[in-house]
């Protein structure tokens, strides 16, 4: 009797979850599906998969003939990876300092970082633009990297220091007794232990940077320094009536994130649910 009821409950849950999953996936399906179809098929039968008759790559060829997306991909990749490197390096070092050493202003610095997580750096746009233009960093990738690093560091430091506090005290003392100096301790003992949280930080850093529109729009809107998202936005702004090209460019911009998510979803979800982000 009880078992029957449970089965019934599970059935309802599955129905609701499947329904909601379909809602989540349907637009993505429409997008990718229709980017591989001929124009007529897009309008005539938007829901069906491309068949031999309707399959076409015309959108992609049109898009690549008009804009050099490879430059945008290079820009995005460069900005994302450089930011990631800087965030991991400085983030880990700062987190280690905050969690291991007692010094004046430690608590204040922690509060300051919490402030940085809560308040978006976007609100300082006026000042940042002025600052970067006085340093001639407008329309450069360096400018973007600086802003993104500043934006991502507070959360990175916070996550990492939560984990570094959990490192076994005896392990550290044992290493120190063996004559390991503080730099070796950090690079050879602590960092290898921090691999899972570093991966978490990597995901939380890379995805928003790759997806961002605001800073490229404000800081690097022209001069071949656009990121993929901004380049796509500008391209669609010009060719909004060509549906093939629009679908193709949206798919092109989406694919890297989809691949990234397919590879890292397990890691990402595990890190969220294990309480890395409280």
């Amino acid at each position: 009797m009880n078992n029957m009821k449970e089965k019934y409950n599970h059935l309802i849950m599955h129905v609701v979850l499947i329904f909601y999953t379909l809602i989540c996936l349907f637009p993505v399906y429409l997008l990718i599906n229709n980017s591989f179809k001929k124009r007529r098929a897009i309008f005539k039968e938007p829901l069906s998969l491309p068949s031999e008759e309707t399959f076409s790559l015309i959108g992609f060829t049109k898009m690549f003939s008009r804009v050099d997306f490879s430059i945008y991909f290079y820009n995005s990749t460069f900005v994302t990876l450089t930011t990631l490197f800087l965030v991991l390096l400085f983030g880990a070092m700062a987190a280690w300092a905050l969690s291991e050493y007692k010094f004046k202003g430690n608590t204040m610095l922690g509060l300051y970082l919490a402030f940085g997580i809560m308040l978006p750096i976007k609100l300082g746009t006026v000042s940042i633009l002025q600052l970067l233009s006085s340093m001639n960093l407008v329309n450069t990738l360096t400018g973007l990297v600086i802003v993104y690093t500043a934006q991502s560091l507070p959360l990175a430091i916070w996550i990492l220091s939560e984990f570094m506090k959990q490192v076994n005290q005896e392990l550290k003392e044992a290493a120190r007794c063996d004559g390991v100096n503080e730099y070796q301790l950090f690079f050879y003992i602590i960092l290898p232990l921090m691999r899972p949280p570093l991966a978490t930080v990597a995901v939380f850093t890379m995805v928003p940077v790759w997806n961002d529109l605001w800073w490229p729009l404000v800081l690097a809107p022209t001069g071949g320094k656009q990121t993929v998202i901004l380049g796509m936005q500008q391209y669609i702004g010009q060719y909004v009536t060509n549906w093939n090209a629009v679908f193709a460019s949206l798919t092109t911009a989406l694919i890297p994130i989809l691949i990234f998510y397919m590879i890292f979803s397990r890691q990402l979800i595990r890190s969220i649910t294990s309480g890395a982000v409280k």
Partner: protein
Amino acid sequence: MIFPLFDTIRISLYTQNLMGENMDNSSSVRAFIGLRNYYELFTNDNWSWHFWNALKNNTYFFLLHVSIQTPIGLLIAAFLSSKDLRFKHTYRTLIFLPAMMSIVIVGYLFNLILSNLWGIPQTILGVVGLEHIYQPWLGLKGPALITISLISIWQFVGIPMMLFYAALLNIPDEILDAAKIDGSGPMTTFWFVKFPLILPTVGLMVILTYVGNYNAFDLIFAMKSLYAGPEYSTDLMGTFFYRTFFGFQMQLGNPTMGATVASTTFGIILLGVLIYLFAFQQRVTRYQY
């Protein structure tokens, strides 16, 4: 990180000759005027209509998010956290997927889907026989903001789902077993045992949504450009700030007024965060397990 925020507040206290159109910081170009920019923003007809309109829309945008996104997230998380439910990993991976996508892509995609030319909503509504309720939602003054809010909710429902799911998993089995032995059914257990335990997470989610919503820009920019049409009915603080700062069509960009708008948004967000920290976080009961 914190310097730009305060420097922006400082810039908002100046005015500048708009013809000397550069980002120059020298005092010959800018003059100190105290709080007059704020006074203008709140009361002068040139600005105030747009400001109050954007603030009203943004508040509406936020309330829709909280009242729709949170319950859906909670429901899905509650389902996913039930034991020996099959395929739960697949569900949560797929439901979280839209949150990974760029807001710009989502915006353009829904512009196409809801476009009159393509007719996807008509087809779907036709299947259930509700074709007549279709309207060009994005083009109508009232429904446009609701539609855009729903799109944003669609995209980010995965985030509350994940946070609630994580919080629900952290509840120890002993408590749930005890509830079961005391004769508590699934619904009672959820509302009287689990929900109070994850209340801190719900509060956190609300404040995260608040901060995110008052910063929203990309979605409106992608779907509606800076017109924030129809008739500015989808204008949010972010788009209003961009128009003020960089100028748009006939209107010249005004950096100091832009700084004023940004500082006001900063104040609004700070107010929310403080309310959360002092009124909610201090009072809510936390259970250690």
